C-alpha cells in the first residue's frame, strides 16, 4: 500500500469514529477493504482488517496495522433486563429447545425467554432488535427486577 492509501484509510477511520460507524466496506478494482471497529475479544480492535487485497498491499498491511491509530472504544451492547421477579427459563418446557441462542437475530416481538412467577409462565419479548451476543443468566436461576438477561449487538 502506498502512503497515499494509508492516509486515505486513516481518514476513513477518523470519519468512522466521528460518525460512530462500526463497519466500512469498499471494493474497487483489485482491492477490497473492510474496516470494523472492534468489540471485546477482537485482537485487532481499531486496527485495519484488510480482507482481500492485491499481493502488493498484503506485504505492507502488517505495517499499516502497527501504524494504526489508538484503539477505538467498542460499541456498547444493548441489554434485555427482567421486568419482573421470578425464575428464568430458556425454553418453553424442560426438554424443549431454547427460544434463542447466541447469534440469533431478534426483533422487538421475538420471545426470548420465560420468567416463571407463582406457577405462571410469562413470555418475555426482546423489545429491541439485534443479534444475541450473550446469555447472561443460567437456565433455572432466579432473577430480580432489572437484572440483565441478555446482551444484544
Amino acid at each position: 500500500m502506498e502512503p497515499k492509501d494509508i492516509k486515505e484509510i486513516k481518514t476513513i477511520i477518523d470519519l468512522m469514529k466521528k460518525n460512530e460507524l462500526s463497519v466500512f466496506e469498499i471494493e474497487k478494482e483489485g482491492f477490497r477493504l473492510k474496516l470494523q471497529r472492534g468489540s471485546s475479544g477482537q485482537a485487532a480492535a481499531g486496527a485495519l482488517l484488510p480482507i482481500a487485497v492485491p499481493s502488493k498491499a498484503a506485504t505492507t498491511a502488517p505495517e499499516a496495522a502497527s501504524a494504526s491509530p489508538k484503539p477505538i472504544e467498542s460499541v456498547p451492547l444493548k441489554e434485555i433486563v427482567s421486568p419482573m421477579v421470578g425464575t428464568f427459563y430458556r425454553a418453553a418446557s424442560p426438554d424443549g429447545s431454547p427460544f434463542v441462542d447466541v447469534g440469533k437475530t431478534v426483533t422487538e416481538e421475538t420471545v426470548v425467554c420465560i420468567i416463571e412467577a407463582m406457577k405462571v409462565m410469562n413470555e418475555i419479548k426482546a423489545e429491541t432488535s439485534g443479534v444475541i451476543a450473550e446469555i447472561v443468566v443460567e437456565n433455572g436461576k432466579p432473577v430480580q427486577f432489572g437484572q440483565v438477561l441478555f446482551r444484544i449487538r
Partner: protein
Amino acid sequence: MFEKVLVANRGEIALRVIRACKELGIRTLAVYSEADVDSLHVQLADESICIGAAPSTESYLKIDRIMSAAEIGDVDAIHPGYGFLAENPHFAEVCESCNIKFIGPSSQAMQAMGDKNAARAAARKVGVPVTPGSDGIVETESDAIKIAKKIGYPVMIKASAGGGGRGMRVAHNEPSLQSAFHSARHEAEKAFANDQVYLEKLIINPHHVEFQIVADSHGHMVHLGERDCSIQRRNQKVIEECPSPLMTPSLRKKMGHAALKLAKSVGYENAGTIEFLVDQDRHFYFIEMNTRIQVEHTITEEVYGCDLVKEQIRIAAGEPLSEHVAHATPRLHAIECRINAEDPAKDFRPTPGRIEFYYAPGGRGVRIDSHVYTGYSVPSYYDSLIAKIITVGATRINAIDRMRRALDEYYITGIKTTVPFHAAIMRNGEFRAGNYDTGFIERVMSSGKLDLISPPIRLHE
C-alpha cells in the same frame, strides 16, 4: 420458629425487623426498589431481591412481585412493617393462601377494624364508648344536617376508608357542613376509591392516647399501657411519650379494659393499637384501631421492658406470649422524637438529598432507630422519616432533659432535619409541664415564639 422471613418494607422499620430476626437466628430476605439499592437494611439482610422501580406503586405495593420473591427465597413468613401493605387485608389473604405466615393479625380481623366505620360499630357493640356521631355511613346531606344538629357543632366528617389522619373535614355550622360534606366525599373517592363518610363530634383539643395490645394464638391477650401521641402536626404524630402525663391508674384500668374487650371481640392476634381521644374531663372515646406494629412501639418497649417485634415473630410462629410480656409492668418514662428530612424553618418542606455527615447521640438512656448514615441519599419517593430518637428516664422530666441533651449532639448536615424543632419543644414550658393537647403544635408555631435550636457543635467533615 421460622427459618427465613421476608421483610416487605424499607427504611427504619425494615432495619428494625431485620435486627429482631438476626437476634432470633432467623435468616432475612429484603425486597427493595431501585431507589433503595444502597439502603442499610438491604446490606444487612442475608439475601435481597430488587422488586421494581422507585415509586411505591411499582415496588413496595406490588403484591405479585413480593410473593414471587417470597417463593424464590423460600421464606416461611413475611413481616409487613407499617404503612405499604401492612394493613392490606388482600395481601394478608394472599400470604395465607400461599402458606406463608403473615406476621400480624388475620385478614378477617384486619378487615373488621380497617373499615373505620365498622370498627366504631364493633366498639359500640361491646360497650366501648365512641365519639358521639352518626350510627353508620351518612348517605345524604340532609341526614348529615340532622345528625349534626343532634350531636352539636363542631362536627368532623370522616372517610370510612381513611385513617392515619387522612380523609377528615371539620364543619362549624350548617352552611359549612353542606359544602364540607360533599367535598369530603369527593376527596375520599379520589384518595381511597370509597366515598363513604360518617360523622363524629369534634372534640376540642383532646389528648390522643393509644393502648398497645398483644395477643397470641392461644387466646392470651394483654395490654401494655398507653402512649400519648397528642403532639401532632397536620394530624401526623411528631412526639410520643409513655406513660401519658394525664393518665391516672383508674383511667388506665378502664381504658385498658375497653381496649382488650374490643380487640377480643374481633379475635385479634399479634400486636395492635387501639386509639382513643381523651377530653378535658378525662372522658375517653374510641376512634380507630391500627392492626399493625406502629412507629412509636419503641417507647412501650423501653417502659415495659420488651421487644415487641420479636414478640410479633414469636406469636406468628405459634408460641405463647412470653412470660415477661404477659406480666409486664411500666417502669421509667420514655419519649420519642421523630426526626424527618424536613425544613422546620420553611413550613416543614421535605428535604430529600445526600446526608453529608451524620453523627448520632449516645450515652445512657438514648436509643436511635435509624437507617441513615454519612453519604446516604434520602430518596424523594417515600415518607420523610429518617430516624427515631428515644430517651428513657426515671421521671418524665428526666426523659425530657435527656432528650434535650441528646438532640444537642445530633449532628446531621447536607439536608435540613427537624432536630432543631424538637430541641425547641424540649425547652418549651407547656410541653415540659405536660400541658398540651392535639392543638399544641399549631398554637406554638403560629405564635411564632418557637426558636429552632441547632446543635452547638461543629464536627470536622
